[in-house]
């Protein structure tokens, strides 16, 4: 996928399988040295909130999976500032260990930099 591709993650974790499968696609590409850039927008920002404990609903923690991104060579993610504000999520509460979070105020300008946007 590489850096001319942006993965646009808009699904909340657990309610939609595409949240996890989107991350799996990013990790698989990164494992092959073709990591895309990643933007969390809309309900996708819920993937980044800590304190996820999905054992009782029979799922694995997406938040823990996300923390593997640096091991796969993805050390920075983009996050839509407005999406956080709309959902009452503070920017401090979405820290993912080992990952630099770059807040984006103009997601349209970010999208314009890429040849491909894969929506998840």
């Amino acid at each position, binding site marked *: *996928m590489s850096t001319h*591709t942006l993965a646009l993650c808009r699904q909340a974790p657990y309610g939609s399988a595409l949240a996890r499968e989107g991350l799996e696609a990013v990790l698989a590409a990164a494992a092959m040295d073709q990591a*895309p850039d990643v933007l969390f927008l809309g309900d996708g920002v819920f993937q980044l909130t800590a304190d996820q404990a999905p054992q009782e609903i029979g799922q694995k923690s997406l938040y823990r999976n996300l923390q593997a991104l640096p091991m796969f060579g993805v050390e920075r993610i983009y996050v839509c500032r407005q999406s956080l504000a709309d959902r009452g999520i503070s920017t401090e509460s979405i820290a993912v260990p080992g990952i630099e979070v770059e807040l984006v105020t103009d997601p349209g300008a970010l999208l314009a930099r890429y040849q491909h946007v894969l*929506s998840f």
Partner: protein
Amino acid sequence: MKFSLVVYSAPHAGEAAASALRFARAVVDQGHELYRVFFYADGVHHGSALAAPPQDEQDLLTPWQELRQANDVDLVVCIAAAQRRGVLSHSEAERLERPAANLADGFELGGLGQLADATAQSDRVVTFGGQ
């Protein structure tokens, strides 16, 4: 121009599967190359040979197989997403000790690397999602 499509929706679950097929036909009708269709998430159900819709409802299997025949389009079903949902080739059914295989002719199981390759090889990638 070279196109690839990514399909997340199961056939008969909503309109997205039918939209993807219409778009794919339009791409080749307009003289463009359709390089690969990557079926992911619930889209892997496209690869099941066992769907049997009534005769007066849309067939969403044969037209893909015809596109492959006529235009040499890669129809790739993501192997990891397919294992979860029970779309298996003969060798996977054997490896995973399942009682039957159902991967339709013309479709192949492939890794997510084939999605990364499709983005690298194609001028345009269009995703089809949602139920």
